[in-house]
Every structure is written in C-alpha cells, then in structure tokens.
C-alpha cells in the first residue's frame, strides 16, 4: 500500500474503558476509512478500533426522516427551549470539550444535567463526599504497589490492561520483577477469568461485602471480630486476619474496586466502607484505593461537571444555580418518576441499560440523541444525530480513571461532525431563542 492510502498513528489513545491506554499504534486504511491494526490494544480495544469505521448514515433523523445536521440542530434547540424539565444525560463517551458545552446548555436552559456516573461509580462519589479517599495515579501502583487487591470487578474481561500495563504484571521502579514482587488478592462472589490471576481469592457471599469490609476495618483497628463472620460472609476469621496482616505489612497497598460494590445492596455504604478501610490502613503503611471506571471519559465527565458546578453528577439548574441531588436529579429517578419532559442523550444508550419504568417514560417524551451508531435509544429519538467517534475521528481531551488528562490523537477523519460541534450549534441556537441564559421566574426565592 502506498503512503497516501495508509497512515500510522502512534501514541494514540483507546477510550473503550477507563484504562485509557495512550500507547496505541494504529494502522489506518485511508481509502476504506478504517483501522486495520491496533498494536498494543487489548481484545476490547481491538474491537473498539475495528468496529468504528465510517458507515453510510444520514447526518440526522428527525421523526425518522433524513435531515441535515443543521436541521437537526434547529429541531433540537426547539425541543430544549420548549421543555419545562429538560434533561441532558450520558457524556461518558465523549470529549471534555463536548462535556463543557453540554453543561453550558443545561445552565442556559435551567435543565437537569447528569452523566453515566450516576449508574456506575456515583455511589463511590457519594461515599467520597462523606469519607474522602486515599488514592494515587496508576503509575504509583505500577512503580510501588506490592499488594494489589481487586474487589468486585473482573478486570480480565472488563479492563484487561489494568493487569498488564498498570497493576499486576507491569514492572516498576520499586517493583522490578513485576508479578513476582506482588501479592494479588481478588474478592468476588463467583470465579471469573480474573480469579486465576490472583494469589488469594476471597469468594464472599452475595450481599455481604459491607460486612467483610467492616470486619477488616475492625481487625485493622485491633478490635475483636466474632468467628461467626464466616457464616455471614463466607470468609473465615483466619482468612480475614491473614489479609489484614498482609495489608498492614506491605510497602504500598492498592485496593481497586468495581461495580460489585456500587451496584449491590449497600451501594455507597459499600464504597464508603472500602474507602474508609484504605484510609484506616494509612496508620500503618501507604495504602490507596481507586474506583475502576468503565467508560473512556466518565472520569472526564466527573471532572468537568465538578469544576463547572461543584458537584460531580445529578445536577439541576432550574433555580438559577446548580443543585445536587442523587435520587432526585439523577436520570434513572427523573425518568422513572416521569419528571422529565424532554431529554438529550449524548453518547449513551439508556434505553438499553435503564430500568423499564425509565425506558417507558423515555418513549413518551421528545428525545435527542448524539451517537456514532444506531442504538435502541437513537431509534426512539425525535432527533437523532450521527456523530464521529471520539478518539478515532474527533480530537479532544479525556481523563483516565485515575484523573490523568490525555489528549486524543484521532486516526482518520469522519464526514460526521463531533459532539462538540453539534452541541455548540445547539447552544448558539438556544442562546438566540432565549436571548441569553434563562433566568428562573422567581429570582427572589434563591432559598435552598
């Protein structure tokens, strides 16, 4: 192949999962508009790169009819401006630049702004607000951690390079032999593909993570735990004591936790117990905890929403300023209760992933979607934009699960606009229609 049909992009970033590996070497077939090789990608990354080529799709669909992006922008702006409780959701699979515009629109129209965090590590964020967190970037784990505990996750299948690039086999400055210099512990209710990677596997009884974590906290603090803990949790006191001894005596410990804690009975209590455990251990040694994030830029969404509003997700602007309300302004609730009367869904597919009552309501209201692919949500949308894919076609900034910001290097151009471009068009049009930011009717009632 000649030079103008093949492009090699080095140091590209994979945004399929929160590992956000930036060492991709992509070979692009420019004629076919697709990535033919993705060196360094894991199996998920390879699929991500392979499957995001350019498909022949209309730029937009309005009520199922083909339309231009500009027409879509007009229709979308009208929907948002005419709604009384418009909501914006998604945002974890797009750039920070696009996320910022989405928050600006929500502020302008006095709408509701929420991200997929609310159904992912939202509870961890709530726990963080209550307890705090001792954490570190992944490079600290690579260079220093000699004890790594995975709790409630299956990295082998969901974050493969978490093992290989960052936390288990990776060789580091003070962990020169990589795997050999580490003890790996896995805690889960069932055996998964990750289990063989661990030196120690704790198979906990379902719905008992909180009790196990609390027992560990007690043991760390030198308190007595009754042996009946085994009956309750499936883990014997001896195993817990052994784990505590290892945690206290390690050089640098890391607790990486997933949805097994947040999507489970206890939710933020589980996450809070884990974060508190890591904090407690700092009396004895250096110990960090980190939530393992699922989507490529959900951490970016947390960061953008936090710096622009003060709160990480579940934000409502209807009173003229940001209000934070998990359970009240989080999207599953807002939809399940039927509060929303319009929705803009950006790079997400809630009609696939949400509980039924939420999906039913989504079908009753005008929906705007921005997505590179057809999804169940885009199929029920009033206005469905086709967008380019971030990281593959569109440049921008993303944040890795540990808050490290990375600049994307797109592989090839797409005829479709990116999320930022469409959202900017919508913002401009909404601004024209409203004559500026919408002010709440009763501006004297700024009571909380």
């Amino acid at each position, binding site marked *: 192949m000649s030079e103008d049909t093949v492009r090699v992009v080095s140091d590209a970033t994979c945004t399929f999962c929160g590992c956000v590996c930036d060492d991709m070497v992509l070979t692009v077939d420019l004629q076919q508009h697709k990535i033919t090789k993705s060196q360094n990608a894991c199996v998920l990354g390879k699929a991500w790169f392979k499957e995001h080529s350019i498909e022949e799709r209309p730029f937009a669909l309005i009520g199922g009819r083909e339309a231009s992006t500009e027409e879509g922008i007009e229709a979308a702006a009208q929907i948002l401006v005419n709604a009384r409780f418009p909501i914006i959701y998604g945002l974890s699979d797009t750039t920070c630049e696009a996320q910022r515009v989405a928050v600006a629109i929500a502020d302008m129209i006095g709408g509701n702004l929420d991200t997929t965090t609310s159904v992912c590590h939202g509870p961890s964020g709530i726990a963080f607000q209550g307890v705090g967190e001792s954490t570190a970037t992944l490079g600290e784990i690579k260079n220093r951690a000699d004890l790594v505990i995975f709790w409630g996750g299956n990295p082998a299948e969901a974050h493969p390079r978490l093992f290989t690039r960052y936390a288990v086999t990776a060789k580091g400055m003070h962990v020169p032999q990589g795997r050999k210099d580490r003890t790996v512990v896995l805690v889960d209710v069932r055996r998964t593909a990750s289990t063989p990677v661990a030196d120690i596997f704790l198979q906990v009884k379902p719905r008992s993570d909180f009790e196990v974590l609390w027992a560990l906290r007690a043991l760390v603090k030198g308190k007595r735990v009754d042996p009946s803990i085994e009956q309750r949790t499936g883990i014997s006191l001896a195993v817990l004591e052994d784990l505590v001894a290892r945690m206290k005596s390690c050089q640098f410990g890391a607790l990486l936790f997933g949805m097994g804690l947040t999507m489970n009975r206890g939710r933020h209590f589980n996450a809070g117990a884990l974060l508190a455990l890591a904090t407690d251990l700092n009396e004895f040694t250096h110990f960090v905890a980190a939530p393992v994030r699922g989507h490529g830029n959900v951490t970016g969404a947390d960061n953008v929403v936090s710096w622009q509003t003060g709160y990480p997700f579940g934000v409502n602007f209807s009173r003229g300023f940001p209000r934070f309300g998990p359970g009240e302004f989080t999207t599953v609730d807002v939809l399940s209760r039927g509060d929303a009367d319009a929705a803009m869904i950006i790079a997400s597919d809630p009609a696939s992933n949400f509980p039924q009552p939420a999906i039913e309501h989504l079908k009753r209201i005008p929906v705007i979607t921005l997505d590179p692919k057809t999804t*169940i949500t885009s199929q029920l949308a009033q206005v469905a934009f086709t967008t380019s894919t971030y990281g593959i076609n569109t440049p921008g900034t993303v944040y890795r699960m540990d808050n490290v910001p990375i600049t994307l290097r797109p592989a090839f151009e797409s005829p479709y606009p990116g999320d930022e471009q469409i959202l900017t068009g919508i913002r401009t049009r909404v601004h024209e229609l409203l004559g500026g930011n919408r002010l709440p009717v009763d501006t004297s009632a700024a009571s909380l």
Partner: protein
Amino acid sequence: MAEKMLLIGGRSSKQGTALCAGKLGEEYLDVTSTVEMNAEDMARLGLQNESRVRVWTPGGEAVLRCKSRETKDLPPGMLFMAYGPLSSRLMTGDTAGSGMPLSKNLDVEIEPVRDGGLT
C-alpha cells in the same frame, strides 16, 4: 415450578467486543441473552446448554438461554448474565434515593420455558 435465585449482571469480554460491533447486532443480542447457571441447578431443573428459561422480577421479565458453569466457578443458586437490554428489564426503577438502580444480586424467579416462548 419456579425457583428463587440470585442474578448478577456484569461485563464480559464478549459483551465488550460485541458492543463495539453494535448493540443492535446479532452478536451483542446473543451475548446479552445468555444466562450462566450452576450445573447442578440446571440438572435439577432438567435444563441443558441453550435451553430457554424465563427469569422475572417485580421489574420485568426476560427469556434467556442458559449456559452451564461448574460449582467451583458459580455457586448453586447464583446466575450471571452480561449487561444488556434483557438484564436491564429485570431492574426496578427504585434507586433508594441514590440514583443507582440495582443490577447485581437481584432476587429473581426462574423457570424453564416448556413450549415455544417469547424471545
């Protein structure tokens, strides 16, 4: 005769790769309509791999195809399925004021599908 079991939803490698191909694609629908079940439980219910089962909760129901797992991997009374439209049907909208609906450790009822059922 319906039995009570515990369902865990989660990610899997196949679900992740199929997701990239497209959520309306056959591969994704296939992966997300499979439920892993303990081998002993399957034997007791007279099920084999690919047998159809109906799973339901107060939130909704789904008909899935089963896949057998050893007890050492998946204890009796426990089910695993990859996240997707069918697993979502089983969630209720109640987030207990947290924003997060439960999708792991759901109490479900399960029974084999005898005649040609829903897909």
